[in-house]
């Protein structure tokens, strides 16, 4: 899958992106001055706490900002070198799933509760490849890829466990043969042992399919294990970026180092838990 030339444009790039939310009472800036790059085959993380703007970024990458409320005020989004900033919804439809697909934290809100899982996966396959000769065979192949039993096609979402639902979501995403998977907190709602299975599956899929991943997460442990590069977001801005090992072992920004200490959930020499103090504190 490494058949790209060095000159090939990145899969995803944003340039000084600014996104505001407008409501009757006024407007707030959710994302500002955001420049990120994801290249083919890369695994990149966007970390931050609630309200930092990371999910807004994920939504904007797929043209999913709430209409009229969320607006791109400045900057550009480039997908495979093409400027999609001003794309209309029908234009976005062409891009969703391929080259970029997305999985969410809560699969139940995405899946149709009254449609069998097999049909939902088949829809995704046919949408991007209407002439597929044998959709059923492709669905079976996708189920195997996400390590679900073949019998799952007849299940309804409510009959499946949280981990299995996340696998269905992945199968739907993979049905579009994405080059980049945006995963917005994909394991946050899962138990740790299930989380480990899903992360293992994602790693395997990335290797086998050469797929890139942009992982949106608040869990620094997961990011440490899964991602080569990381962007740290705080109050709508990127405050630090670089190789995950470098950034986490030697953070240059005070917020990043506070976040890492807090994430370790260890007590310091005075028996206290680490908190983030000063200008970067989030008052509880």
């Amino acid at each position: 899958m490494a058949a790209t030339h060095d000159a090939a444009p990145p899969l995803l790039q944003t340039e000084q992106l600014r996104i505001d939310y407008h409501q009757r009472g006024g407007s707030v800036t959710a994302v500002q001055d955001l420049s990120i790059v994801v290249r083919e085959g890369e695994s990149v993380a966007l970390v931050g706490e609630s309200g930092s703007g990371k999910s807004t970024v994920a939504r904007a990458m797929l043209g999913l900002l709430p209409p009229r409320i969320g607006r791109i005020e400045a900057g550009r989004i480039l997908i495979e070198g093409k400027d999609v900033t001003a794309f209309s919804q029908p234009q976005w439809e062409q891009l969703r799933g391929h080259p970029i697909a997305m999985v969410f934290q809560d699969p139940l809100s995405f899946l149709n509760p009254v449609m069998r899982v097999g049909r939902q996966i088949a829809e995704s396959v046919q949408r991007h490849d209407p002439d597929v000769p044998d959709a059923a065979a492709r669905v079976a192949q996708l189920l195997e890829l996400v390590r679900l039993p073949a019998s799952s096609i007849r299940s309804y979402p409510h009959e499946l466990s949280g981990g299995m639902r996340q696998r269905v979501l992945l199968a739907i995403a993979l049905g579009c043969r994405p080059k980049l998977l945006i995963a917005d907190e994909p394991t946050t709602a899962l138990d740790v042992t299930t989380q480990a299975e899903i992360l293992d599956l994602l790693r395997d899929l990335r290797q086998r399919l050469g797929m890139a991943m942009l992982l949106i997460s608040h869990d620094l442990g997961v990011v440490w294990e899964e991602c080569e590069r990381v962007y740290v977001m705080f109050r709508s801005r990127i405050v630090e970026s670089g190789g995950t090992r470098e950034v986490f072992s030697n953070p240059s920004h005070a917020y990043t180092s506070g976040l890492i200490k807090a994430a370790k959930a260890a007590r310091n020499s005075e028996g206290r838990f680490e908190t983030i103090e000063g200008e970067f504190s989030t008052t509880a």
Partner: protein
Amino acid sequence: MTPAPSPTTQPLLVLDRISKTFRIGRKSVLTAVRAVSLTVHAGEIVALVGESGSGKSTLGRIALGLLAPDEGSVAFDGRQLASLSPDEFRELRTGMQPIFQDPTASLNPRRTVRELLKQALWKTPGSNESRCIGLLEDVGLRPAAQYLDRYSHELSGGQRQRVSIARSLAMQPKLIIADEPLSGADVSIRGQVLNLLLDIQRSRNVSYLMITHDISIARAFADRVAVMMQGELVEIGRSEQVLRTPNHPYTKRLVAAVPALG
């Protein structure tokens, strides 16, 4: 069943061979808790760790007297819950207070912080504004007067959790049973709330039974850790020992699954 023995020798909470099953539909039965025994001593912090469906929350509800066990008994402060009259139970139960995961759900949205606290102070009628302010200061909401007239939707998630902790403290409890009190919180807030719980333990000699799925928190916060799997207690011991050198295969799996920061 001897009434009120010396509290130093007697554990504060004794769960003795607790079992609980639930009926699902007409045919099937789910055993949520199976013959679990657990004690919490005065001033001690015990963490109850397990994944969803392990029965840890059911056990917490049984300890609080919110659910009756099918088998086994609960004793708090030397007295069997099952042997008490409703009035006695009501009185004893003030010494054992819950904190839940979602403070938005446990705080009445139509009451101000002042009303919420006054309600919790029912044991001491005529308690005035200064008691409310004292409680808010104890949980780190300062200046307290600023918070008295707010409704819960006007508070941040961390502030809301502090108000529900203040409500628990109003009862002057000996034991706080906290069911996933941090799972909705960001890491930066997590540290602040854990420090607050430690401060309360020190200043009021409160014990905690903390129900959590987060092993790193259990390790750092608790004196002892109990691990539950599918309704059974599979391992219990000093936190460091259980989580650094686990014995049971499930505990090993659980510890290995936690992504560690290098």
